[in-house]
């Protein structure tokens, strides 16, 4: 079994899921430092605070299912099974990165765990997820697709078209909107007339659920329901997971636009804390330390590892005709 599949299978227990959330949080905490030290270029988007959604979903779906996710994709990448080395390697532009260092933070992927290259254009991944669902429907497999997007993305046309299309064609797809209350620096209420986004599902005759995205058991339960509907040919479901990103939108955003106290309120409902309740505190402390050590080691490995060869830039541009010469 590959390392990624092994990692994915670890999500079958409460402890395994909790540890993955811990790992995600730790990896993201390293990124800020790597950025400051000049190892991360461009932009990078942390999902700290949103770990329960990624891990909850990853723990339910199969590796032959497909996930399309956004630039805010570290959590999903790690949850689905990509290793910290491959994620951090990509973010730092190293050959060991999951895209060999040519993609960067916004384009993490690994087909063996079902993660398409994460999408840097808002909304773009949603119709693409429909396509994976269409393949399953056409070939008669019972694989499904999960399309993850943000509250801000809800206002882009691609998502409207996708909801309608998925409903008319009864595609096996689960729409997951991570409603973290902000799209970049804009609060939801300034860009969207309703507080809940799930209300739109009715216009497409799609069943919807509004859930607490901070509680992994809630995420899992609603995912089970939506996935069952999809696999059994009953079509799409929209899950709106209320959540929060602790950091700003991207590495350059101090998030001063948030009202005082809002962050604290959400941190009081931290998904890792919530999930820890079910676990014995002695066990988890030891295991947490191991995870943190592994993440530190991954960082060290990445920093020791070389950038891609120049030839990597010329590979995989097209299939047969060479690099589109």
């Amino acid at each position, binding site marked *: 079994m590959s390392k990624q599949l092994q990692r994915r299978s670890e999500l079958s227990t409460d402890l395994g899921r909790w540890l993955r959330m811990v790992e995600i949080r730790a990896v993201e905490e390293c990124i800020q430092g790597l950025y400051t030290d000049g190892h991360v270029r461009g932009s990078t988007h942390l999902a700290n605070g949103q770990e329960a959604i990624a891990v909850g979903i990853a723990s339910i779906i199969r590796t032959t299912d*497909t996930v*399309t996710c956004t630039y805010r994709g570290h959590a999903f990448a790690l949850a689905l099974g990509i290793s910290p080395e491959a994620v951090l390697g990509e973010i730092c532009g190293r050959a060991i990165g999951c*895209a*060999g260092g*040519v*993609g960067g933070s916004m*384009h993490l*992927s*690994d*087909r*063996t765990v079902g993660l*398409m*290259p994460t*999408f840097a*254009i808002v909304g*773009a991944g*949603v*119709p*693409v*997820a*429909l*396509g*994976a*669902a*269409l*393949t*399953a*429907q*056409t*070939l008669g497999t019972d694989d499904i*697709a999960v399309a993850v997007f943000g509250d801000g993305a809800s206002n882009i*046309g*691609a998502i409207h*078209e*996708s909801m*309608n*299309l998925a409903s*008319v*064609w009864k595609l096996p797809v689960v729409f997951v909107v991570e409603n973290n209350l902000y799209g970049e620096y804009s609060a939801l209420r300034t860009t969207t007339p309703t507080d809940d986004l799930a209300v739109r599902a009715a216009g497409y005759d799609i069943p919807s659920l509004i859930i607490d995205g901070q509680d992994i058991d809630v995420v899992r339960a609603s995912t089970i329901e939506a996935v069952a509907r999809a696999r059994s040919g009953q079509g799409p479901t929209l899950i709106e997971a209320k959540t929060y990103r602790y950091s700003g939108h991207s590495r350059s955003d101090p998030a001063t636009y948030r009202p005082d106290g809002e962050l604290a309120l959400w941190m009081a409902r931290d998904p890792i804390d919530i999930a820890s309740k079910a676990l014995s505190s002695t066990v988890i402390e030891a295991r947490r330390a191991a995870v943190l050590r592994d993440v530190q080691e991954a960082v060290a490995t990445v920093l020791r590892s070389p950038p891609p060869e120049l030839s990597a830039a010329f*590979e*995989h*541009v*097209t*299939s*047969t*005709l060479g*690099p*589109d*010469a």
Partner: protein
Amino acid sequence: MTKLRMRQAVVHALADELECDPTVILLGEDIGAAGGAFKATEGLQERFGERRVRDTPISEMGFLGASVGAAATGLRPVVEMMFVEFIGVALDQLTTQAASFRYLSRGSYAMPLTLRAAVGGGLGFGCQHSQILDHWFRGTPGIHVVMPSTPQAAYGLLRAAIRSDDPVVVLEHKALYGERGEVELGDAGIIPLGRAATVTTGTDVTIVGLGRTVHTAVAAAAGANWTADIIDLQTIKPWDRACVLESVSKTRRLVTVEENSAPAGWGADIVDTVVGELWGNLSAPPHRITAPHIPIPYAQSLEDRYIPNAIYVHEQVTTLLDTGRRPAPWWEGRV
């Protein structure tokens, strides 16, 4: 060989690929029972079923995006865009998503996506339904672009496009759908991507055309006091450098004929390459014949004048050969 209209050749190509590869599916607006706005998918839904020949809602971003996802996961979707301009509401999925999927996944995902679109003027559809717009796609690495001039090319290039593991844009000139020609069906009729075809051979000039302008060039050469290698480019991207360079090495003169205006037309890159490769071996400046840089007008007399016709191409080439200098375009002084 079978005598077919170009639209029928398209139907045949689609049918043959649907037949021999169960992963091929078609998507588009009214391509099913209606057989498509240009009847280029006629009868296919009846034959292959509603699952494989899918009518879509009017959601170009949605169904092009879905095709990207389907292509990545094991299908070979062939999307019909009724008019190429409609890609303006969905371009992202082609040039940003499909084009970089393979690259970003380091080859894990292939992208066997074919996008057919009706293009071109001359039929009075007005300025928003008559353009070629190859320049929207030509600058993007990872995409191939072809444009057939005959029923055979429509058949052969489309089958090659569907078999390609890369996104291929197939631009079908709507004025050619009704044209007839002999078609070699079957695998022997497949035309590989990236290869031009020499339509006539001559000595004085190489004329490169694409789609409908190939016929314009042929008509322009008829009865001329010069003879030409007329090259049908077939694939615009990547275009066949070897074929063009070999011909121009011989004729020492190049003319490109396109239905686009100059600023972003495909002829410029060919002129540039020829100038670079054959510097010192040219007897006249390579020359582009284009349309003027104005929206395509509706009224027949205006639209007919807009599109480069055989008489104009004949005059332009003749003057170029006579003088060794580029002739002015017909609209000079008007712009």
